[in-house]
């Protein structure tokens, strides 16, 4: 029986609860603002659910530990912020290459470098997609409330396990310090998916041989007798290093294509008064909440403003965005950096003027500040 309960949680706590609901069994982390309290919350709570929480010597160890734990059969996660995410870069590619299900909570703060640890930012729109070298697929989800932090962390695990990909939940400093009501659910009220198990016996099973319909290979865990080779080098379906054109091309294409083929599982967006919107705002994360107020107030004054909010950032709901922009005369991208998301919006919406409103502020911008910054297009 599914039963819901209520919590009054910030996005860190909500994401931790979502992870527990999804079946998290291993968490490794390194202290960093503003992700430490998620770590602390799990350190206290996860052992009661039979899970292990460990503090590693750095973020590089944390990401590699969760990859190892995932192959040992556990649903595994880490949480960090910009500097730690940069340190994890190489091994996020390792997870993508070896098709390892992992979830990374990334709480954005103001960068670059050490930046302002206690201030918000959205500087990792592009980095979250291209964090590691080489070409590969990755999924990035962006909540804008505690409820979504909970729901999307569950979704992140479902995608990670079912598609064998690393999934990033991209939150920000404001969200993780805002407490609000969260409805906590249990299966079957909420769907919790598991990785596909091998259907072939050891000897015949090949760890990187995809099922043709979804391009995702079933996954054998360590200790189950399959002698699985987790190979960071370019490999064939057995995991054997194969520096030859056709194997390399087949592998890289599939790492990207398996997300495209399963787009329906991933892509998500929200709209607010977009049906007849003449001015379409695009924003995500906490800043989208301020933009929502802008739209709300404008509507009371009879102005036809709307908001398109990507929930899956990578890949984005391109159709949804184009549809929301159908009647728009202007598309205004509001983001807390100097212009990243706008590049994607320009690529997707080609027949409308797309404007950038970059807000390099250390606190959540007010609706008035957003209107002021966007004034010349309004």
């Amino acid at each position, binding site marked *: 029986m599914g039963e819901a309960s209520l919590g009054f949680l910030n996005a860190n706590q909500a994401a931790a609860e979502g992870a527990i609901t999804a079946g998290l069994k291993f968490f490794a982390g390194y202290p960093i603002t503003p992700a430490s309290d998620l770590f602390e919350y799990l350190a206290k709570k996860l052992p009661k659910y039979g899970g292990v929480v460990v503090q590693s010597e750095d973020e590089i*160890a*944390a990401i590699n530990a969760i990859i190892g734990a995932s192959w*040992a059969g556990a649903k595994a996660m880490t949480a960090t912020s910009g500097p730690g995410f940069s340190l994890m870069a190489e091994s996020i590619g390792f997870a993508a290459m070896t098709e390892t299900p992992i979830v990374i909570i990334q709480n954005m703060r103001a960068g670059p470098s050490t930046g302002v640890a206690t201030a918000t930012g959205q500087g990792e729109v592009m980095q979250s997609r291209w964090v590691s070298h080489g070409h590969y697929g990755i999924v990035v989800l962006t909540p804008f409330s505690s409820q979504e932090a909970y729901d999307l962390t569950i979704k992140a695990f479902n995608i990670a396990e079912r598609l064998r990909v690393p999934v990033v939940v991209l939150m920000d400093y404001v969200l993780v310090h805002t407490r609000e009501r969260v409805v906590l659910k249990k299966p079957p009220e909420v769907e919790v998916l598991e990785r596909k198990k091998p259907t072939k016996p050891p000897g015949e099973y090949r760890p990187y041989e995809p099922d043709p319909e979804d391009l995702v290979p079933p996954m054998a*865990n*360590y*200790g189950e*007798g399959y*002698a699985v080779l987790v190979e*960071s080098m370019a490999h064939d379906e057995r995991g054997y290093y194969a520096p030859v054109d056709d194997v390399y091309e087949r592998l890289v294409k599939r790492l990207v294509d398996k997300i495209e083929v399963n787009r329906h599982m991933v892509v998500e967006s929200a709209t607010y008064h977009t049906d007849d919107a003449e001015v379409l705002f695009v924003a995500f994360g906490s800043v989208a909440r301020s933009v929502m107020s802008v739209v709300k107030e404008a509507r009371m004054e009879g102005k036809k403003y709307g908001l398109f909010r990507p929930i899956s950032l990578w890949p984005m709901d391109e159709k949804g965005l184009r549809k929301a922009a159908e009647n728009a005369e202007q598309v205004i991208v509001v983001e807390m950096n100097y212009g990243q998301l706008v590049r994607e919006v320009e690529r997707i919406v080609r027949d409308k003027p797309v404007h950038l409103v970059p807000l390099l502020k250390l606190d959540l911008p007010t609706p008035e500040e957003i209107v002021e910054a966007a004034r010349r297009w309004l």
Partner: protein
Amino acid sequence: MAVIRNIHPLDRFLRPERLPHMWCPGCGIGIALSAFLRAVNELEEEGRIDSRKIVFVTGIGCTARASGYVRFDAAHTPHGRAIPYAMGVKLANPDLIPVVFSGDGDIVGIGGNHFIHAARRNMDMLVIMVNNMIYALTGGQVAPTTPEKIYTTTTPWGNPERPFNAVTLAWIAGANYVARWSVTHPELLKNSIKKALLMEGFRFIEVLSICPEVYGRHIGFRSPVELYTHLRKVVKIRGKIRPLETEYDWERGITLGEFVVRDEPGFVRRLMEVVKGGKA
């Protein structure tokens, strides 16, 4: 191409279809790997280990390529990250037996911090470090284990750095078991691996190896046999001495032996005890 299977008793631990391997003629890594496989084989025949529980983890480098040749659950991780990967494996499923098998650059160079902290935690794993005293796969650059004054391609005037004595490092960081052997004495190495495989906590075995192609050739050894014969003179087996008394010097000698045998609880046991006994 037809593959003849099971002509060697250790073939069941290998992927013979992947042969020939990529190691150079005269390389010592095969001797170290063979010692490990014989140790596992003997323990399994004695009914003391289930080889299906072994997870064979390597980083990057010549030694690290072993993960592709063995038929265990295995991983070929990014450079230096075999130890944290193995930590995750063990903590997620304590029934598994992680074995890190990697080179000196991987373990105490780029992965040095992980090594120190895994030893400090007494993290349950066996680390076998094959030490050829050089970055071999990349062509012979100086390693944290290269002896002083030795020519390498990045220290063409001779190595000005002092090398790590990995034995003292592992001991001071808190490992349960510390030994150093050499490919010149594979039987002693095998026995040490057998012992360490059955222990808990962090176990560290360094294996001095020979790299005739880029270590030996660059400093004037004209054949693998010449280098191997020289290494036999460099290494000195000592019984019952403490880690601080071990030497690591190409001229004065490199001490072999078993230097630390402790029975302190490993991390898994410690973690279970605090979670069960404590309040949070």
